[in-house]
């Protein structure tokens, strides 16, 4: 069965505070004088699944996101094929 790889990009929802991102942004602003106006630290997951076709593979990845990988209360996610 063919294998399909995807990248899952997980970010906090825009109304959720992100102290790690804020700290990194502050360092870039203050220590390096780089005028960063937005920095949000999310996470990315590289994932590979075996499936009949890409559509099935994508379904599996979305199921994984909804069941455990993403907390949809505070996070959003996007999946792209790589």
């Amino acid at each position, binding site marked *: 069965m063919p294998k399909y790889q995807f990248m899952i990009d997980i970010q906090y929802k825009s109304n959720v*505070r992100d*102290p*790690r991102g804020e700290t990194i942004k502050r360092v870039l602003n203050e220590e390096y004088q780089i005028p960063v106006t937005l920095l949000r630290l999310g996470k990315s997951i590289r994932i590979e699944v075996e499936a009949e076709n890409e559509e099935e593979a994508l379904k599996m990845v979305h199921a994984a996101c909804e069941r*455990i990988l993403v907390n949809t209360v505070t996070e959003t996610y996007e999946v792209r094929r790589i």
Partner: protein
Amino acid sequence: MSCPRAQVVVYPGSNCDRDALWALKYVGFDTEFIDVRSKINADLVVLPGGFSYGDYLRVGAVAAREPIANEIRQFVENGGFVIGICNGFQILLEMELLSGALLQNSSGRFICKIVELEVVDNSNPFTRYFLKGERIRLPIAHGFGRYVKTEDVNVVLRYTSDVNGSDEQIAGISNFRGNIFGLMPHPERAVEKNLGSDDGLRVFLSIYNFLRGN
């Protein structure tokens, strides 16, 4: 009547399980450790603090999806009592037995100290030995204790100052039925004066005597 029975779930990475067991024994519970594949046979189940599965994905996320989670769901549906302390609270939220989320402290730092709390609700079986509005002192030790409120909840404990950026300074909540209690502070680490506070003792005494029908 027979002695109330408490089981403490030991997840890989739990580190407050022994403290919890000690506190439960101290007030008179018949106690036992169980693991993620055990069956529940108790009046009270304790989800202890720690770093279950390293908290790698999200705090409590993996622990909330182990076989014991289904046991816990069934147990609370039948009216069983569950207390989740620190990582245990995070697990209860990931299981969606309580609503909201616990995210990184607003300071970005791990905070380990004794804090002052206000008892907002003393009608709960876990807090009935406190006065409403009473100020108590309990230790906290967490990096991810900022409570984000997503719907109306029954607030049981509030920090008296802004400790970690929690919405409405919420430190502990229960479901409206009152049999599920989750809190970030550690009552099990505050059961003797020489630990800095013995205010946590009353949490265990409250539920112990409630279960005994006193």
